[in-house]
């Protein structure tokens, strides 16, 4: 079948530091002074020497931190922006869902905007007319068609744009972060539609920060960092590489990684405070990365200025988007620490870590006996990465589990390795 898309040595340079648009005066100055000729050549490479291909019918995810050049790549493929070097070969027509909302006009009605939007996307009017009901239905705009767009909610406006785009019939579909918009129900609808298109043989290139979406849509991904390919391969591996990279970034700023953010400002830190939080494996070796199913130990060192009776400790884990996944505290667990004076070490053991692959942060709190007010409570004191050689079928948690099957004569039980 061959490749639908081939990028060969593609780079994109922007001029650094200059205003977005020049005035004639600026250019005259540039022409007239020798230094500015030098300055003018100072360029910023948004994308550098990018080479990859996407097989026809394939789905490729592009992930990476902000400013790594992901959107620029899509813009070059979509012919919005011209590459500075390299060659892009495209087999088939390209449709782009790059930030919906462009081209719609607030004074025009929903109906008029659907046609306007369609012609921007390159859909002929008769095709839109044919798909009109389906578009309206997808967007959930029935009854608002003859209302000017300015009276729509922002969610409705976005849905209108995406719904038209979702009805494009191109061989290649570029998707840039569109799923960040709309409510949860609409997002699900969009994901389903994208998957339908993919299953029908449309080649998809997806740029997203929603790594879970990338994982669900694209078997393969590339990780872009500062315009270069940092990793390429099966999506779970690339995502895990990305997490490691994020973790290195955190380690380069140790104060952020170790002290974390103070959750509640309290002067009671003078009475008792967290000195350090360490993450270690079963052998007691400190590590920033763990395998799914490995043992994890969280070791807290603290110091009390006076004798604190029956302090309580809380530990929780959240993902990088601040969703708290799980936590434990001494009060609910009925674990009583008689008292702390001076330095002390408190340890939480997590046998067979069930957190799915991803980047996590550890939050630690030191509390009074009733857990009403904290002495010291910090978010994101440590970060760690969970890798997995196996994929989770779904979700972000591995539950302890076992399978069983019966076929009449004999029963088979397979114990899960977790």
């Amino acid at each position: 079948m061959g490749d639908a898309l081939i990028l060969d040595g593609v780079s994109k340079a922007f001029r650094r530091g200059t205003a977005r648009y020049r005035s004639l005066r600026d250019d005259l100055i540039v022409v007239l002074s020798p230094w500015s000729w030098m300055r003018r050549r100072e360029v910023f490479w948004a994308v550098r020497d990018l080479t990859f291909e996407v097989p026809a019918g394939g789905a490729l995810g592009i992930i990476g931190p902000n400013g790594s050049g992901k959107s620029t790549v899509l813009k070059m493929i979509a012919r919005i922006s011209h590459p500075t070097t390299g060659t892009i070969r495209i087999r088939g027509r390209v449709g782009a869902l790059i930030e919906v909302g462009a081209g719609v006009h607030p004074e025009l009605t929903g109906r008029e905007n659907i046609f306007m939007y369609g012609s921007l996307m390159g859909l002929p009017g008769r095709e839109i007319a044919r798909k009109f009901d389906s578009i309206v239905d997808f967007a959930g705009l029935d009854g608002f068609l003859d209302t000017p767009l300015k009276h729509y909610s922002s969610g409705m406006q976005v849905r209108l744009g995406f719904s038209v785009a979702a009805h494009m019939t191109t061989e290649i579909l570029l998707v840039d972060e569109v799923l960040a918009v709309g409510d949860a129900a609409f997002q699900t609808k969009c994901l389903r539609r994208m998957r339908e298109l993919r299953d029908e043989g449309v080649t998809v290139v997806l740029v997203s920060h929603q790594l879970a979406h990338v994982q669900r849509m694209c078997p393969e991904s590339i990780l872009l960092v500062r315009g270069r390919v940092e990793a390429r391969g099966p999506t779970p591996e690339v995502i895990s590489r990305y997490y490691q990279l994020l973790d290195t970034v955190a380690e380069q700023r140790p104060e952020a990684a170790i002290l974390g953010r103070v959750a509640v400002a309290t002067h009671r830190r003078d009475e008792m405070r967290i000195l350090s939080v360490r993450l270690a494996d079963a052998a007691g070796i400190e590590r920033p990365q763990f395998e799914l199913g490995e043992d994890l130990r969280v070791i807290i060192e603290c110091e009390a200025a006076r004798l604190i009776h029956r302090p309580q400790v809380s530990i929780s884990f959240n993902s990088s988007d601040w969703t708290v996944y799980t936590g434990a505290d001494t009060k609910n667990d009925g674990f009583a620490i008689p008292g702390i004076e001076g330095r002390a070490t408190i340890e939480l053991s997590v046998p067979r870590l069930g957190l799915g692959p991803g980047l996590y942060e550890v939050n630690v709190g030191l509390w009074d006996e009733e857990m009403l007010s904290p002495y010291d409570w910090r978010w994101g004191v440590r970060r760690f990465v969970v890798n997995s050689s196996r994929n989770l079928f779904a979700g972000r948690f591995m539950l302890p589990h076992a399978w069983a099957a019966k076929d009449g004569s004999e029963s088979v039980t397979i114990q899960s390795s977790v």
Partner: protein
Amino acid sequence: MDTHVLRQHTRESVIRAADAPPGLRSGLRELAAHRELLVNLALREIRVRYKQSVLGVAWALIQPVVMMLVFSIVFGRFARLPSEGIPYPVFSYAALLPWTFFASSVSAAMGSVAGGASLIKKIYFPREVLPLASILTYTVDFAISAAVFGLLLAYYRIGLTVQVLYVVPLLALQVAFMVALSLLLSACNAYYRDVRYALPMAMQVWLYATPVAWSMSMVPERYRVPYAFANPMAAVIDGFRAAVLHGAPPDWTLVAAAGGTTVLTLIVAYRYFTYVERNFADIV
């Protein structure tokens, strides 16, 4: 939901960084493929204009009519400029009709690329569509004010002859010149916002440098051809008056001179536009 049918034939396109901009033929093919967008953009402008303003369509007439009144009073009454034996209001309106079309569409087209930034950054289409849509928008205004001209002619009992058909090639020449200027100015304005400030003034000067308020007969014979070279609109407007008011063919030498300038401008403008348009998304 509609089932998606993949097209069997797939077209391969190659984007090479170093390639020269595509030539005129493929440019026109792209444009033809996006004609619906062109029409829809123009329709959008027209709809929006008439939805937002109370007077709506009437605005298309007000500008040339007011100008005609001012000119008739200042130049016709006070200055008593010669008007080729035609009542001055008709004389000036005959010129204001093509001039207003020219000035307003070129002014609108000039800002179209910078104004279409949100589109340019998000969606691919041949960028020529933007200035062309501005021109298309103002053809509606032109048609409306032309209808008013018809009423004016009837009021002054000036009959049209079959010679009026000469306005067709004249208008074609004018539109070609407008396209050239629109491409050039809209691309320049994307880079240099100075254009936006300079153009209104330039248009004012240009109006008086064109036989709108006055007659071409005031230009000495031997200067007319170089004049038409320098200002194609002069030849267009003079021809327009000849065809409509005098039932005579335009001065073909002047039209040829204007045509020469137009073709030249068109070549330069199209080259420049295609050369810079691939950078529009990065700079606007």
